[in-house]
């Protein structure tokens, strides 16, 4: 057959009659899904999977390198931190915090934000003006600052991290959903529903909400990664999940004094964050391309 690449290129138009590759954007993002799947399994099965307790200290075994280093051993495949705790166990348990924070926060924020957006877009006028000014004000408040204030006044906790991020994050959903609702309101089927005798509740729940679902799903997926980063940043600053609970952000912070001598303490949790966030973003992009090509700018 054609060994010359030029021949193969020329032959393409004919073979395109039966494409063996789905159009771009439709292909299932297998690698990102695999990464998320692995981390989710890890989080659920943490007690079964992790080789040892993430809290057990052993000062004699502190700062052991990972197994591929010549000084490493299989007792601690990814090495240990400065208190001699097993890195693999801490990363596995840390996925619980990151994923739970990411998912919970985004669900909370999207529920509130979508509700506000639907109401503002549907009623318009003064209701819309008031709700959107509140939204603008919320968006102008830095998440990290609010979380720091909460951490200092109420004390750092998982719950406070979720609340602090959600209290700011809903605004973005409100904006996007309101925009979506405004375009929907112009369409005849909303007018038709009203003429058919549907009340506000019915129109919002049956006609507007289902039509914004695509946008919401895309936004939620894209935001999970963002929330994981914010949570890690808060934990890094000490305003997030309090020690000794393993969280990726605080693990990076703990390792920053030894970056030159024991790089793995900071690097490995950082890598975990990178992989999860990247995977969520790729899935989000894919969802956006498949469900809602209008949303390119998000």
């Amino acid at each position, binding site marked *: 057959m054609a060994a010359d690449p030029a021949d193969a290129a020329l032959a393409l138009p004919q073979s395109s009659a039966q494409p063996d590759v789905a159009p771009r954007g439709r292909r299932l993002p297998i690698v990102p899904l695999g990464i998320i799947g692995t981390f989710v399994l890890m989080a659920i099965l943490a007690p079964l999977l992790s080789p040892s307790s993430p809290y057990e200290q052993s000062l004699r075994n502190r700062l052991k390198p990972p197994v591929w280093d010549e000084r490493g051993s299989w007792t601690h495949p990814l090495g240990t931190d400065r208190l001699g705790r097993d890195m693999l166990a801490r990363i596995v348990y840390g996925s619980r915090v990151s994923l739970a924070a990411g998912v919970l926060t985004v669900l909370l924020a999207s529920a509130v934000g979508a509700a506000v957006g639907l109401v503002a877009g549907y009623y318009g006028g003064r209701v819309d003006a008031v709700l959107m000014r509140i939204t603008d004000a919320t968006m102008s408040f830095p998440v990290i600052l609010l979380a720091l204030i909460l951490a200092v006044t109420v004390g750092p906790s998982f719950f406070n991290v979720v609340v602090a991020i959600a209290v700011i994050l809903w605004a973005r959903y409100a904006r996007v959903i309101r925009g979506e609702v405004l375009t929907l309101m112009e369409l005849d089927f909303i007018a*038709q529903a009203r003429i058919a005798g549907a009340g506000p509740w019915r129109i919002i729940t049956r006609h507007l909400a289902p039509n914004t679902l695509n946008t919401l799903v895309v936004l939620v997926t894209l935001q999970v990664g963002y929330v994981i980063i914010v949570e890690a940043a808060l934990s890094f600053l000490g305003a997030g999940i309090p020690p000794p609970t393993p969280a990726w952000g605080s693990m990076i912070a703990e390792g920053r004094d030894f970056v030159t001598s024991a790089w793995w303490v900071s690097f490995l949790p950082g890598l975990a964050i990178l992989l999860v966030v990247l995977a969520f973003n790729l899935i989000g992009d894919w969802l956006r391309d498949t469900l809602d090509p209008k949303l390119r700018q998000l």
Partner: protein
Amino acid sequence: MTLPVVDVRELRTHIVTRWGTIRAVDGVSFSVAEGETLGLVGESGSGKSMTCLSLVRLVPRPAARIIGGEVRLDGDDLLAKSEAEMQRIRGRRVAMVLQDPMSSLNPVFSVGMQLGEAVSMYHGLRGRALTERATALLAAVRIPSPAARLRAFPHQLSGGMRQRVVGAMAIAAPPRLLIADEPTTSLDVTIQAQYLGLLEELQERHRFAMIFVTHDLGIVARICDRVAVMYGGRIVEIGPVRRIFRAPVHPYTKALLDAIPRLGARRDRLTTIEGQPPDLVKLPAGCAFAARCAHVMERCRQEAPPETAVAPDHATRCWLNA
């Protein structure tokens, strides 16, 4: 004479804008009897659609407001009803078909779910009875293999099919009054003819009164019994279709009819109406058509002409006939 299904008296709807108040509907009166079709014609902005929305009290608030008048549906004054009562009247007693079939169905639900929603809302049916009723409605609007179409989503249907589904939803109750706001404007001519035939057939069966908004005089001639010509928020001439087409009285109606191109007429250019449609914010004190009228008199600019009968059931607003 029997009581008309709808009786509209001196209806006024104003829209408040930054540039001033638009008198979109300015004292409109008409009535439509059972089984009768009234055509509502006029150029864009003459108040046709606003009149229809006022009948079901769905004018775009808060800018638009129904200022006064009476809308009686089988004797009940709709303008005096509460919003909750209106919700029960809409769809059940007054239904409406809008212009754009492409967007008049909810894209995320199947035809069956949307039609079913209307049927269950009006008749409280469930399960099998609901499906049967929905199928029967699709069959009534001449949709082939209706049972299978219930599972179809709007994007799988053509514009004509979708408009039929909208029609099926409109007659689900069935209503006493059907308002059709340019339902065939975006359909091509053959589908348009079929749809008009369908509306006539449905009207024959259910005997509802119909208000048909259009700016196509050909459609008026085809399906309407009477026609009301609107200009600047007022009805300038109303009467039986035959009379209006044969012996129009108002200069605007005459001009409209002259502007229809005719086959075989030897003319190089189409006849048009000189001038611009009136600025609705600054309507003149007198007749709104005065600035474009060929027979304008001094009085036309000063005083608005009253409605005068030129024959039983044929009235106009023009000083020439007053």
